[in-house]
């Protein structure tokens, strides 16, 4: 049996605490919608406005006039989308090798993979920038996509999943039927890996969408991602919070919608990855 929750009073207290947490988690997002739908001068009111106004559309138009926001959205979709697809594919491929194939150096390589999850890549940002200068990729989306095509977390995540979920007998049966290793990957591994790969893809998409520091370093304000455009907006219009927060709302909305629809699976993935980590 599951543990009792205790007395009615304790139960009430638990719910009250959690509702307070929900309130404080949602409040800043709600308030940004409030500000985004107001005229900037309305923010000087005492008391401050607490519910949405009718200025949202006008603010949105102003955002698109101030920064290349449509281009930013397109870039972000392109970057986050291709990174997510590549990470899903390459992580499943490497995860299959680590989980189910025997080869010399497997354990050592897996250990390196786990260790690199801990290494702060931000420290290598200067040589990374020099590489991009050499390749003439500064200011281009290649600079964001190529280094992120596959990462240690994804490989580890898929290795864990496949070593649990992929029955070795299934692979042996495939071998008996004359499958090459690639055939096994295509016909046996991919169908089994699909749910975990989907979760990995969503997590990757979200973090690529939200990535800020590296895009800021390597891109220009003329060809930005959403996050870079948002920071330009915030930097140039420090006092115009209505404008900044309209941009923020627009840039966050797509993710929040995806998250509201698929939140349960995403959370499942995070919690699964966590226990193994």
């Amino acid at each position, binding site marked *: 049996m*599951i*543990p*009792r929750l205790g007395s009615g009073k*304790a139960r009430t207290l*638990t719910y009250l*605490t*959690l509702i307070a947490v*929900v309130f404080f*988690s*949602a409040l*800043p*997002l709600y*308030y940004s919608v409030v500000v985004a739908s107001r005229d900037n001068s309305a*923010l*000087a009111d005492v008391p401050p406005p607490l519910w949405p106004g009718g200025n949202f559309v006008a603010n949105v138009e102003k955002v698109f006039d101030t920064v290349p926001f449509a281009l930013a959205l397109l870039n972000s979709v392109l970057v986050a989308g291709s990174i997510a697809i590549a990470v899903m594919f*390459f992580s499943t*491929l*490497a995860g*299959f*090798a680590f989980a189910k*194939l025997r*080869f010399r150096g*497997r354990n050592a*390589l897996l250990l390196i993979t786990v260790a*690199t999850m801990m290494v*702060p890549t931000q*420290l290598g*940002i*200067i*040589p990374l920038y*020099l*590489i991009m*200068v050499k390749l003439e990729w500064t200011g281009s989306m290649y600079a964001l996509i*190529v*280094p992120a095509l596959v*990462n*240690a977390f994804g490989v580890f995540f898929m290795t864990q999943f496949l070593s649990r979920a992929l029955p070795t007998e299934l692979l042996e049966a495939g071998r008996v039927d*004359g499958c*090459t*290793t*690639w055939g096994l990957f295509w016909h046996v591994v991919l169908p089994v890996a699909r749910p975990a790969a989907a979760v990995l893809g969503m997590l990757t998409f979200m973090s690529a969408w*939200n990535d*800020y*520091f590296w895009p800021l370093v390597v891109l220009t304000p003329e060809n930005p991602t959403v996050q870079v455009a*948002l*920071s330009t907006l*915030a930097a140039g219009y420090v006092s115009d*919070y209505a404008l*900044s*927060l309209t941009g*923020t709302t627009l840039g*966050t909305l797509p*993710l929040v919608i995806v*998250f*509201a629809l698929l939140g349960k699976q*995403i*959370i499942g993935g995070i919690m*699964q990855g*966590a*226990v193994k980590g």
Partner: protein
Amino acid sequence: MATRAPDRPTAVPRHRSERFSRQLAYRLDVKASPYAYVMPFLLVFCAFGLFPLVYTAWVSLHDWTLLSDVHKFVGLDNFAFLLGDEYFWNATFNTVSIGLVSTVPQLLLAIWLAHLLNRPLRAQTLFRVTLLLPNVTSVVAVVVIFSQLFGRDYGLINWVLSWFGVGAIDWNAGTASSHVAISTMIMWRWTGYNALIFLAAMQAVPRDLYEAATIDGASGFTQLRKITIPMIKPTIVFVVVTSTIGAMQVVAEPLLFGTYSPTGGPDRQYQTLSLFIYENFAKLDFGYASAISWMMFVFIVIAAGINYLLTRRSGGNLT
């Protein structure tokens, strides 16, 4: 029937040589495929992860700017200058201060929230999804939103504080107040995420331990202290170490808070180490920026190591 497992039962080889080449292909496939499959990861990691990290050390030994093609080797000069640079120590202090103020309450709160969620509750999914909502929000969005909330004149937070007779606080201006504001942003974004990770670990704790404790009359808090925390110790160590690494790298919050500037406020009152690197990077002083990166790497290893040992030790005392 086939004589060999890997061959198709129908495709009986006509010639000895064909059979041989098939075997060869099979061997090659089995031997080489695994390497081919991990190769994309290794290539990307070596080119864009490992190489830059090592190359940072090389750059840090030079007088290296992007403006000149000549990079003069200067040995440890950059590091010597660094150790005497008060801005560096200021950034180190700010990083540690913001790290402590954001991480310690955050992890305690996260454990407590996970403990609350680790019970049969209605609307579990709703609670979990809302907990993670801040983490889905981008750092940029978080800072922009909180800069408005922490505004001196029209911010919501000062407005609420004014009910209690607190005068308008200029959150940007002071060292302590700006650290609190930045830590609040970090906490808001990460508490729920860490709570879910703790919750995942707690769900793996055998239920009968709690049953026995309940029969013995142990309170919820005692159960948390005596059963849950010792049982999820590995996860706590993991979260503490990753949070430490994360806290050492805080950069977007101080960059975007208030006036967008890599100095972290006019008096550098909230410039973190990463932001200090970015400031020198923006000045195209790559040699010096690389030296700071390596010092920071050393700090991260030390901080993560200390926290690793501390959490392991304290967990041991609790059992």
